[in-house]
């Protein structure tokens, strides 16, 4: 018998009648929702960049869109991709799985890709406002303030004392960390949006008094270009130089040669920059710090690289005297000891009485902190009503225009991304002040926080899609790690140590598109939908609808019976299960 003749009775339960009439949605008492949340990286980013989305777009090869997503919150991706201490990576949920995403490397890649293809970002600008604003200082804070004010519709003039914009980025950061073309390109890009920078114009006290007739507000972002005096004998001798001044001379293109040992006093990023520049100029550098390495305000990665390059670090020593000694310097160092911590967790130190030693060096560089160029620029000394925000200080003097102090003048952490944060906060605060009045500033800023803050989102402020984002910060426990596989983090390609010491060539090298995509693809995309379609695949009721050509997913509540599988299987917590309201 052939199977075609098989007549064994075979009654089976089978129906070709549609089951659509059976609206299983009526069984539901729990409702799944697409509910995008906040990624920990974006909340930790002082500029509030939408990092989960940036990585998602990069992984999808949408580099322009990813770059524009950065630009909505930060005009400096090429700069921040290089020199930002990336607090985002410290809190990356993927770090609990294998290794954090190399967010800064991807950011730099996007900026470089945009530059290589000469991309023009499509960014929205609100309708023009009548108020005009002056910005003092074309450093990252001033430029960011002008950039965001321009987006909000304001006319801005940026005044810069130096012959070229960039502030500390231009004159204080060594080339091996931030090459000039990258900075110039980024600033030119910002200027092309319509930000006007007037260089070589130092602002006087009188300018502020006269500004009222031309400007409704002035943003003070003129930074801390002046090295603070240590206050020890011998500080003024010719072999002692200010660290910032030294870096500035280098960035002016002066050819400096050094030999022998130089001492660098301080523990901040300037001290590291000075020391690493010294070794590139043929000298040896010894950093003298009065606390310990772990207490240094400099970024750990920078300290590490300096030591790799042969910089010596002496902890728990404070110079107390400098004397000239036959064309050299004799430093008298007081040894310090630990005496507990202060109430902010910073190590307290005391001189270890009787313990001093001497150190003979060729040169001494002071990098013990910086202050404003002139005392009247100090924000504390202004009369009138003031409002202290997280990164700025807004002052309404009795006379003259509204002043908003930002950047290094007000930021506790002096970094480029904090400068951007303060420029953004200033722009928002001024806009609120002009549009809704002084009282509205705090509540309106509150509504634009990324997660719990203090970072602010300009996209949210301007009414973009991001405003629907839930402020809940996704934790690693909320990630369904079953859907991910271990994959190591990209390692930053770098110049070899020997090559580094020969010149001021940029140390960190470019990465390929492939590597950038692979790294971005490691991102969990915490809290946001990347169209992975797990919800669609796991839904037992075919109640997840994805329309062709539409990136959105939606749920057909006629048939969703609220089993919650989609929510559990969402790898990135972009969905929420809520009890049905009766």
């Amino acid at each position, binding site marked *: 018998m052939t*199977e075609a003749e098989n007549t064994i*009775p075979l009654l089976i339960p089978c129906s070709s009648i549609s089951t659509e009439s059976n609206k299983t949605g009526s069984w539901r008492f729990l409702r799944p929702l697409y509910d995008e949340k906040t990624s920990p990286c974006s909340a930790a980013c002082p500029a509030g960049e939408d990092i989960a989305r940036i990585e998602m777009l990069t992984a999808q090869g949408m580099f322009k869109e990813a770059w524009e997503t950065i630009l909505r919150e930060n005009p400096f991706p090429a700069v921040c991709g290089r020199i930002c201490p990336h607090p985002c990576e410290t809190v990356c949920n993927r770090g609990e799985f294998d290794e954090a995403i190399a967010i800064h490397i991807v950011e730099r890649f996007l900026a470089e890709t945009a530059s290589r293809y000469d991309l023009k970002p499509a960014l929205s600008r609100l309708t023009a406002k009548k108020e005009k604003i002056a910005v003092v200082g074309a450093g990252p804070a001033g430029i960011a303030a002008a950039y965001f004010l321009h987006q909000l519709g304001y006319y801005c003039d940026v005044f810069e004392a130096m012959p070229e914009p960039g502030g500390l980025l231009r004159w204080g950061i060594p080339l091996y960390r931030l090459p000039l073309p990258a900075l110039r390109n980024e600033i030119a890009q910002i200027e092309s949006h319509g930000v006007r920078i007037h260089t070589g114009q130092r602002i006087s006290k009188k300018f502020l008094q006269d500004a009222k007739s031309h400007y409704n507000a002035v943003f003070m972002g003129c930074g801390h270009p002046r090295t603070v005096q240590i206050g020890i004998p011998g500080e003024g001798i010719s072999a002692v130089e200010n660290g910032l001044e030294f870096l500035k001379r280098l960035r002016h293109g002066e050819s400096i040669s050094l030999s022998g040992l130089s001492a660098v006093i301080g523990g901040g990023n300037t001290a590291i920059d000075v020391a690493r520049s010294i070794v590139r100029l043929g000298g040896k550098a010894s950093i003298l710090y009065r606390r310990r390495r772990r207490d240094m305000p400099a970024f750990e990665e920078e300290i590490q690289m300096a030591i790799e390059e042969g910089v010596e670090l002496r902890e728990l020593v404070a110079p107390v005297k400098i004397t000239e000694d036959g064309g050299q310097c004799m430093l008298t160092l007081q040894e310090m000891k630990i005496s507990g911590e202060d109430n902010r967790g910073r190590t307290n130190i005391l001189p270890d009485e009787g313990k001093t030693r001497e150190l003979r060096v060729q040169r001494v560089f002071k990098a013990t902190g910086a202050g404003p160029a002139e005392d009247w620029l100090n924000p504390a000394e202004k009369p009138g009503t003031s409002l202290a925000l997280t990164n700025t200080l807004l002052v309404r003097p009795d006379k003259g225009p509204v002043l908003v102090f930002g950047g290094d003048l007000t930021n506790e952490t002096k970094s480029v991304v904090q400068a951007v944060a303060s420029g953004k906060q200033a722009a928002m605060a001024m806009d609120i002040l002009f549009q809704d009045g002084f009282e509205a500033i705090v509540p309106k800023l509150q509504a634009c926080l990324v997660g719990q803050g203090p970072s602010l989102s300009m996209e949210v402020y301007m009414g973009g899609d991001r405003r629907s984002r839930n402020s809940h910060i996704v934790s690693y426990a909320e990630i369904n790690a079953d859907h991910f596989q271990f994959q190591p983090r990209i390692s930053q390609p770098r110049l070899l140590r020997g090559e580094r010491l020969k010149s001021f060539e940029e140390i960190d090298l470019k990465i390929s598109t492939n590597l950038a995509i692979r790294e971005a693809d490691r991102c969990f995309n915490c809290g946001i939908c990347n169209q992975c379609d797990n919800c669609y695949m796991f839904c037992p009721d075919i109640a997840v609808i994805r329309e062709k050509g539409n990136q959105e997913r939606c749920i057909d509540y006629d048939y969703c019976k609220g089993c919650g599988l989609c929510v559990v299987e969402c790898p990135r917590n972009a969905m929420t299960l809520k009890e049905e309201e009766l």
Partner: protein
Amino acid sequence: MKRVIEGSHAVAEAVRLAGVQVISAYPITPQTHIVEILSEYCAGGTMNARFLRVESEHSALAALIGAQSCGVRTFTATASQGLALMHELLHWTSGARLPIVMAEVNRALAPGWNIWTDQTDSLAQRDTGWIQMYCEDGQEVLDSMLQAYRLAEHVYLPVMVVLDAFYLSHTYESVDVPAQEEVDRFLPSYQPRFQVDTENPCAFGQLVPPGHYMKMRHDIAGAMEESLNFLNEIQEEFYRIFQRRYNPVEAICCDDAEIIFVTSGTVTSTCRLVLKSLREKKEKVGILKMKLFRPFPVVMVREAVSRAKKIAVIDRNFSFGASGIFAQEVRAALCNVREHPAVFGYIAGIGGLDVTAELLEEIYWKTKNTEFPEKESEWMGI
């Protein structure tokens, strides 16, 4: 081609030759060797099949129910706790009339934890609607697997091919592994009478009223009966190609036997030696080897033992509160026969204990020297 392979590999070779398209299984001793080699075949391209890794036996069979509904040939293997975990879906498979084939390696159920042979795991699934075949050696394993697909796809019922743990699964023997062309002649590709078809959408397995349900169950009963006939029919064809045949029961020297052993699995081989030695002593003894357990070949059993005085059923299993399961089935088959031999039930080799020739001989003399069974079950070697 003759090869020296494990019983497990005999299963795997049959699965390869049958051109199975979807395999899903969860590892469990003593079954693991089967799917281990199959996974290699799938990964290496020897087989053009999807190997679905799952998190449990329940999911393994569920996956196959889905795959088989789409009209492909499928395979799984399990043992002991794994089979117990599949229980719900065993019913579903037969109810849905899906011709899935499974290799079941008989292993004792826990606790105490025991990985050795014991038939209780498969026999406890006797009411799930699966055809069950018990194998004696590696060759029979391979051949039964090929026949299982042919049979399953004719009657639309699932088949369990059962082999003893270690004695069969892990023992290397000479096995004739046939050529692909030979197998293709015996086992054509699967042409399902129903399947999921996206062009003609339909739903399977939905609610049915009692009348329909009863008719469906009746159809399964009918298919079970038909499977006995069909299995007999295909032996001739199988013999022509492979020069081997297997009947649902094998009656060995039963024509003049006064005492007949009823055996299954590898115990049969040992019993063949005992038979030889007893026959040399002029004892009138026979063996009834039970290959097929479901459907139970009632008529063949009645016929084979019709001339005997006593039957000694060897059960490597036990139904607590009743007796050995083969003994129960044999008694049930005979109870409506006016004159039938006395049925002695012996429980032996539980949890992998050796069933030796000496033990079987002891059973023979005990049966011979006892007029009538004093109890339902005699536990041997305890």
